[in-house]
């Protein structure tokens, strides 16, 4: 049933694939639910509040209650909106967010995920599709806040994708492979790449925060000026899918971060999936910590920072890595 990677496809192994994908979907929804809970709890503690504590023990069912509430809310479509695009946009944003999880090696044997030979490139290529969903959603709403939010989001994600991609090239250079599982194996043989690739690591950390539209780069949905940004007009479950996209990307980016710089599933003593989970938890917690600590950037600094600071840094890192690799 689980031998589809080494044998030709059969009915049973196809069933195994479907089960694997469903397991990953359920896991993703669980991770998203509890990362939202953890976000509210952690930021609550940082700000000397208690955080959610009413629904279920320690407020553990808070997010489930919120999702249920969104499901029974009326679905309002503005009469001026471009109806077809308005309906497609949340799906267009969500599908690539979930699909990128297919290539992240969550454990040593890739039980539920695909061992794609171009993993890192696949992630970057697909994550760019979400920009279309966000921008279409903003434009189709026919709302000024949504339009500005969508445009900002697109420009920001485009600008920060370049340094993100460049910092990944440094890792690919060291590992000699684009396959994410091979990158993890290469790290388990030598050293986790955040030490030799410290510059790329810093660039990746900043650029990924911007890619996720999280504080201090949450300009696309700056509440104080744009109400809610590109999803201002979205209600009920359509809004929920935009939020879901955001948190699925948080999980996926945490997985990519762990895989590229922290050795993925590799580590001593503990089983692979637990190491992976710990590293994902670390990244998600750092994101929430940053969110509680940093003020929002100014819009005029945003683009300049990506092109004038991060891109030269990433290029510099790339040249150094290549030269060192050629000499040593």
């Amino acid at each position: 049933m689980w031998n589809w990677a080494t044998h030709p496809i059969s009915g049973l192994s196809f069933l195994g694939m479907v089960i694997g994908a469903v397991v990953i979907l359920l896991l993703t929804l669980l991770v998203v639910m509890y990362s939202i809970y953890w976000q509210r709890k952690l930021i609550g503690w940082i700000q000397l509040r208690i955080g959610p504590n009413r629904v279920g023990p320690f407020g553990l069912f808070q997010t489930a209650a919120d999702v249920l509430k969104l499901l029974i809310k009326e679905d309002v479509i503005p009469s001026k909106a471009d109806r077809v695009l308005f309906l497609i946009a949340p799906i267009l944003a969500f599908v690539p967010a979930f699909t990128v999880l297919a290539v992240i090696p969550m454990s040593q044997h890739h039980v539920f995920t695909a061992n794609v030979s171009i993993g890192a490139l696949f992630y970057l290529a697909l994550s760019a599709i979400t920009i279309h969903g966000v921008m279409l959603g903003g434009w189709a709403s026919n709302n000024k806040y949504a339009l500005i939010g969508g445009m900002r989001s697109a420009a920001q994600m485009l600008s920060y994708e370049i340094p993100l991609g460049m910092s990944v090239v440094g890792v690919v250079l060291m590992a000699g492979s684009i396959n994410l599982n091979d990158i993890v194996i290469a790290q388990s043989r030598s050293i986790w790449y955040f030490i030799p690739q410290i510059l790329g690591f810093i660039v990746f950390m900043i650029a990924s925060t911007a890619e996720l539209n999280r504080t201090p780069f949450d300009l696309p949905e700056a509440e104080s000026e744009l109400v809610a940004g590109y999803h201002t007009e979205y209600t009920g479950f359509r809004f929920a899918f935009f939020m879901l996209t955001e948190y699925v990307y948080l999980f996926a980016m945490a997985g990519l971060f762990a895989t590229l710089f922290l050795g993925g599933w590799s580590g001593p003593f503990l089983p692979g999936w637990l190491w992976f989970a710990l590293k994902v938890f670390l990244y998600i917690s750092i994101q929430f910590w940053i969110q509680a600590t940093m003020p929002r950037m100014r819009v005029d600094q945003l683009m300049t920072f990506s092109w004038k600071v991060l891109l030269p840094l990433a290029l510099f890192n790339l040249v150094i890595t290549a030269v060192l690799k050629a000499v040593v």
Partner: protein
Amino acid sequence: MFQYWNPYLLVAIFVVLGVFLPVSSIWVIGPILRPNKPSAAKQTTYESGVDPIGDAHVRYNARYYLFALLFVVFDVETLFLYPWAASFHKLGLFALVEMLIFLFMLVIGLVYAWRKKVLEWN
């Protein structure tokens, strides 16, 4: 051949599942659970509580298109760097020099955009 294609079959299943989840919850389960009482006032565009003025489908500040142009240049560059990086250990010094020349030409482009104040926000 199946070693190559089977992972992509799994990716295709992920795509189908990714479409299935929003479609089933928005169009199948949702209508049963949620109320549906549309009214003209509810369907007006939101503009901080006042009646919306004009339309949002207007000509938009072209500031962003310059970033889009730069993006295309540098994204294609990144795309070229991936296969180079993956096979660098087999190609050796020659590939390094080639890529340095390539990067140098692109850095000239970046410096040009910088000097032309394209990267500035005004």
